[in-house]
């Protein structure tokens, strides 16, 4: 009921008064530096506070639970005091396996790096093959599906028998652990290249190499990186277990050694380091993915 009334009002008003529109310069108000700094600090605090609070609560609960007499595990305060030497000096080296945590972690990381890089290369190559050729898929896929369910450590005895040395055997375990998700995701990525892109390539008569670099790799990159991220997580999981059995320098054996000498606090410290490094590795691959796919991964 209000509509027609409002309409006639505006209709009569329009011809009467129509002042020339004045253009107002748009004034961008910049908040003073102090206010912006405060606003920024608040945003940061909003993101940092929750994890800090939760962590504190967890530590307090742990302290209470394990601080009682007769507790089997040490409370955080005891962990800190017992491992202080390891925390402040991760670089000491007294020969043999009596080294700082830095050396153990770097030995593990080196094994993972070699095994994982080999897995990435072989996995992307095999995945491309399986994704591109129906024949290769039919031939290889059943084998992949069976082999990928074999637990990483089950490969270790076979690997030791073949290589007769701890180092290459551990690297092989990493390789065989990380390769499956990389193969499978790459194959899915290649398979999912839209027919339109293939048509564009056909009309342009791109040769195989051009097709590979200009269509296949960018189009499948988001899938490939999903595989690479799962792969790096799995390799880091496998290395700790493999090193426990192989011995020598490495974070896995460090944990096993600590257990054998009942140094529970050192185990806990090592677990924290393993977790943090696993997280960093995952972030690195994720960062690499954003850089390579230039943020078009969502498409």
């Amino acid at each position, binding site marked *: 009921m209000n509509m027609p009334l409002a309409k006639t009002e505006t209709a009569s008003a329009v011809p009467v008064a129509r002042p020339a529109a004045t253009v107002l310069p748009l004034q961008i108000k910049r908040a003073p530096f102090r206010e912006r700094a405060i606003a920024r600090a608040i945003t940061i605090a909003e993101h940092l506070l929750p994890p800090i609070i939760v962590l504190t609560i967890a530590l307090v609960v742990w302290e209470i639970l394990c601080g009682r007499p007769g507790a089997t595990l040490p409370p955080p305060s005891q962990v800190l005091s017992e491992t202080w030497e390891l925390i402040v000096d991760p670089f000491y080296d007294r020969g043999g396996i009596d080294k700082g945590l830095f050396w153990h972690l770097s030995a593990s990381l080196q094994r993972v790096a070699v095994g994982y890089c080999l897995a990435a290369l072989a996995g992307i190559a095999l995945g491309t093959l399986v994704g591109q050729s129906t024949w290769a898929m039919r031939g290889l896929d059943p084998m992949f599906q069976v082999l990928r369910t074999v637990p990483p450590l089950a490969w270790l005895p076979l690997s030791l028998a073949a290589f007769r040395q701890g180092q290459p055997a551990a690297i092989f375990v990493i390789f065989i652990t990380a390769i499956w998700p990389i193969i499978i995701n790459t194959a899915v990525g290649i398979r999912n290249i839209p027919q*339109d892109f293939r048509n564009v390539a056909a009309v*342009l008569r791109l040769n195989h190499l051009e097709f590979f670099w200009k269509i296949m790799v960018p189009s499948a990159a988001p899938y490939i990186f999903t595989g690479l991220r799962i792969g790096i997580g799995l390799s880091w999981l496998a290395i700790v277990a493999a090193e426990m059995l192989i011995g020598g320098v490495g974070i896995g054996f460090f944990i096993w050694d600590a257990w054998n000498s009942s140094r529970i606090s050192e185990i806990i410290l090592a677990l924290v380091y393993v977790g943090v490094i696993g997280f960093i590795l995952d972030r690195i691959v994720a960062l690499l993915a954003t850089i390579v796919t230039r943020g078009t991964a969502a498409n």
Partner: protein
Amino acid sequence: MKGYLKVDHVGKTFNKGAHATEVLTDITLTIEKGEYVSIIGHSGCGKSTLLNIVAGLITSTTGGVLLEEREVNEPGPDRAVVFQNHSLLPWLTVYDNVSLAVNKVFSGTKSRAERHDWVMHNLELVQMTHAKDKRPGEISGGMKQRVGIARALAMEPKVLLLDEPFGALDALTRAHLQDSVMAIHQKLGNTVMMITHDVDEAVLLSDRIVMMTNGPAARIGEILDVPLARPRKRLELAGNQTYLKCRQRVLEFLYERHRFVEAA
């Protein structure tokens, strides 16, 4: 019968196991140089299949396609396609999408600077130079289709194949883009084969309209000449007798004689 592009007794049967579906039967069509020919028919009548056969993206079961007296049976830049859903590579900028085609087609004949100028020239034709550094995800559907057209034009094709190029666009954008295509056709005199299901679009743009019967085993039902002078103006044609007659003729064909049976 000379003809620039000849579709000669083309038939296509798709085999799926023991089950065979005949999609196209005995399609014969001659397109002259500089002619704008539309192919119209109900969905599922195989008009896109016909375009894909001309493009070389699928092979015909019987018959063949001749371009300048030469048989074509594989895809190539001499028959550039503007795909319905633009098919721009999302990881490349607008400029790079066009230059991918230009660099491939003119790698031996044009210098680097000439190729750059040619990319920019084609982006200018479709009025897209302002967005040359944007990625397809950052521009509108109409703009993407413009870039698709620029990419096809940049290959300097002998025949431009348009596969329902305006199908995915809203009505206003579509009209705007149709005008652009008309202007480009006027200026460059391309030979165009366009698939459409829009009667007004077909009459407005084409010199001839090829009407297809319903599938399976679709044939050419009728070919209609559109004797309207160019350049054509959308608004002036709205009341033009010839325009209305042509429109009527196509509508009759599609909705009386070859009604789409599955349509509810």
